[in-house]
């Protein structure tokens, strides 16, 4: 069984001192919302997770959801946990007050999501997708659809799903074949969707599927796709779930991890056609989906954070207890005393803290955007757009390394399922794949967010980082941190120069470009954390043990992660010559 305790001190530090949440709240006149209040909310969330989700995580792994008589039956215990989750009001945390939400800042939602994802990733996927469905309806749905669906989705009484992928339409959604036909004030949907997370279950009264489909008169390609609401149960006159829609789960995937999360093949319109309702305008579905994509992709980044933290805690506890060998005077040695184990633990600690800083920083930008004037908003939106592929791509790739290190700390015991870390390794592996693979994130960052933007946003970040480099001047003993950050910043500048000169090679170097930016921005936020920690220490405020540990963790990050920008820039500058030079036959030449 793997343990989990909410890392409340680090979370509080990031919210209070790195992001200076209180100043924001005061500035925006938020009613009694501040870092203290965040602590109250998060400590209750952590208590909820400890009781309802943490131990159930392994149940999900051992007892996956099952398809019984055409219905998906979720992991035993998940239903009760979900009903408690709804009863306690957690799904409504940052949703609009107009529809029964609590209207709290997105930053708190990110911090609460970290808890759910650490506690039970497979379970937490269900409300996470619900948040996307809510956003789709909130931003694009008609007043009638909002009135019918939003309140119950926000309360969690109903859950939501996202239906994009088809067997021949994965990354390329232009290939979607699912049809929608107008029929007496609504539409009939026909087609099959795959990889539908939490596509069916018995935890809630109704499931609201958001489905991408093509209208008969639709133009070809991505501009001909529309978005529909397709409820599992059609609503009766009073708005309650009534007769069953023509929707069913055909089968469940057998996956490497997240066993507790049913991944469904969904069939629409096997008989008379599944009744659906158009969201927004015809043919705009993909645009609507992309408007939510930032949020969903940041959510996956937070999953990477959550699982890294959980795996780290397990490894840490194991390392502090596991005895191997003895010293010269015969005292037994716990493996946390060994240099290499400490290195692995610090990799996990510093990596996770850097991911947390980046996820929270990005999530907080959403709050700044919401509170900004309409003139200020585009600039913040551009910032978030730049950060999103990094949050998603870099955090989830680094999470692979961190959970794998966690297993390494356990040695052979970790490879045995009982230790619990194997589940984290398996569960984590989906993260760089779904919601757009790392390759897609890298292209998004490198092409759309950098080249097409003429590096405007990238340049702004370079200026931000430079300011922190300058600020480190005044911090005693931060010379190494300063030169590491400065050197990594030079690598980012070099990458921009190279990219501007070689735009046609962008797709070959995109992955390294993404990693370079991830390590740089992670390092930037760690350097800012180090400065903030020192300020606290200078004021004699806070927990000096934690703050000094934070400084060491930041230093370690700069020595072990920030330096990786060197490898990235070397690979980028090598360009695509080798990458593109092999013929396809040559790839097979060692076997043919």
């Amino acid at each position, binding site marked *: 069984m793997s343990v989990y*305790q909410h890392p*409340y001190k680090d979370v509080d530090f990031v919210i209070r001192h790195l992001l200076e949440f209180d100043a924001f709240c005061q500035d925006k006149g938020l*009613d*009694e*919302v501040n870092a*203290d*209040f965040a*602590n*109250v*909310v998060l*400590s*209750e969330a952590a*208590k*909820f997770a400890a*009781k309802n989700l943490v131990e159930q995580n392994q149940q999900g792994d051992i007892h996956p959801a099952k398809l019984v008589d055409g219905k998906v039956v979720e992991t035993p215990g998940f239903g009760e946990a979900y009903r408690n989750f709804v*009863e*306690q*009001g*957690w799904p*409504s*945390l940052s949703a609009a007050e107009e529809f029964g939400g*609590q209207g709290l800042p997105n930053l708190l939602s990110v911090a609460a999501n970290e808890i759910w994802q650490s506690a039970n990733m497979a379970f937490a996927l269900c409300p996470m997708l619900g948040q996307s469905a809510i956003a789709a309806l909130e931003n694009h749905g008609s007043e009638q659809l909002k009135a019918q669906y939003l309140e119950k989705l926000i309360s969690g009484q109903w859950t939501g799903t996202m239906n994009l992928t088809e067997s021949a339409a994965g990354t390329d959604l232009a290939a979607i074949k699912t049809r929608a036909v107008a029929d007496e004030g609504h539409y009939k949907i026909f087609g099959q969707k795959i990889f539908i997370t939490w596509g069916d279950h018995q935890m809630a009264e109704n499931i609201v599927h958001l489905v991408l489909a093509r209208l008969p008169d639709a133009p070809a390609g991505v501009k001909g796709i529309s978005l529909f609401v397709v409820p599992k149960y059609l609503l009766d006159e009073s708005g309650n779930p009534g007769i069953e829609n023509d929707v069913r789960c055909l089968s469940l995937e057998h996956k490497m991890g997240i066993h507790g999360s049913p991944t469904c093949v969904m069939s629409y319109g096997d008989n008379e056609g599944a009744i659906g309702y158009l969201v927004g305008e015809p043919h705009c579905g993909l645009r609507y989906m992309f408007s939510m994509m930032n949020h969903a992709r940041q959510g996956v980044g937070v999953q990477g954070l959550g699982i890294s933290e959980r795996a780290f805690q397990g490894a840490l506890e194991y390392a502090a207890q596991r005895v191997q060998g003895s010293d010269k005077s015969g005292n037994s040695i716990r493996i946390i005393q060994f240099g290499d184990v400490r290195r692995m633990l610090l990799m996990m600690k510093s990596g996770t803290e850097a991911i947390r800083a980046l996820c929270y920083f990005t999530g907080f930008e959403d709050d700044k955007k919401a509170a900004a004037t309409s003139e200020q908003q585009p600039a913040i939106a551009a910032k978030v757009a730049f950060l999103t592929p990094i949050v998603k791509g870099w955090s989830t790739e680094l999470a692979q390394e961190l959970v794998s290190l966690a297993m390494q700390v356990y040695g052979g015991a970790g490879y045995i399922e009982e230790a619990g870390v194997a589940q984290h390794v398996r569960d984590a592996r989906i993260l760089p794949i779904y919601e757009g693979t790392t390759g897609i994130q890298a292209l998004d960052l490198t092409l759309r967010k950098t080249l097409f933007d003429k590096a405007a946003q990238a340049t702004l970040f370079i200026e931000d980082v430079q300011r922190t480099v300058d600020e480190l001047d005044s911090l005693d003993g931060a010379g190494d941190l300063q030169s590491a950050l400065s050197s990594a910043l030079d690598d980012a500048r070099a990458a921009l120069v190279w990219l501007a000169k070689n735009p046609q090679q962008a797709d070959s170097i995109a992955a390294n470009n993404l990693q370079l930016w991830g390590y740089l921005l992670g390092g930037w936020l760690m350097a800012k954390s180090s400065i903030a920690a020192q300020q606290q220490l200078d004021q004699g405020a*806070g*927990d*000096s*043990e*934690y703050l000094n540990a934070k400084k060491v963790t930041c230093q370690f990050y700069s020595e072990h992660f920030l330096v990786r920008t060197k490898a990235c820039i070397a690979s980028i500058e090598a360009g695509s010559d080798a990458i593109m030079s092999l013929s396809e036959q040559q790839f097979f030449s060692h076997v043919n």
Partner: protein
Amino acid sequence: MKVLVTVKRVIDYNVKVRVKSDNSGVDLSNVKMAMNPFCEIAVEEAIRLKEAGIATEVVVVSLGVKACQEQLRTALALGADRAILVETEQELESLNVAKLLAKIIEEEQPGMVILGKQAIDTDNNQTGQMLAALTGMAQGTFASKIEVQGDKALVTREVDGGLQTIELSMPIIATTDLRLNEPRYASLPNIMKAKRKPLVVKTPEELGVSIKEHTKLIAVTPPPERKGGIKVANVAELVEKLKNEAKVI
């Protein structure tokens, strides 16, 4: 009926207690603090009384440093209506706490006061009983069940060897035992509502109570460490050792 509940800020029960190297006390700097578990049960009981229509108002009181407001906020989020903090930097012995609470009771005139039977830091198990003696209210300590019947209350108490039920004339003071109830979590809507619930700060001076020192803490030391013994190979060896070496069976 108004119900008064007390909550104490203590070290979180998951935190490993470390004795300071100078033996002056337990190291509480920067450790996680939480509401005393028995106080959580007290708050829960008060809220249930309100939900059952027996209590009309739940007032929660804490005594100590400013940070006790956190625990009061938690109690408000759980469903208490308003909070009182008696703020002082001084260490409060149980008798001082009881005297301060007696003053609050004089002002508030509650029909019932519910306290945790003990705090998991000092483990004193005194305040409720002292408060009963000072106020002249009847006491139902270590309660596993509280039933109000008009001007009487039936309290079932966890006593050594079983349960004892006593009938008390209201107003009463009850202290909670583990089985009284299972405390709830604060729901998000209730946490939101708690933001605006009133929290009043008073001082011992305002209450006219001077804090007197009745005991002096000379030293705090770690308990004698227990050494691990031996591993036995099988059940037979275990039985043999227990019989002949430890002589306990």
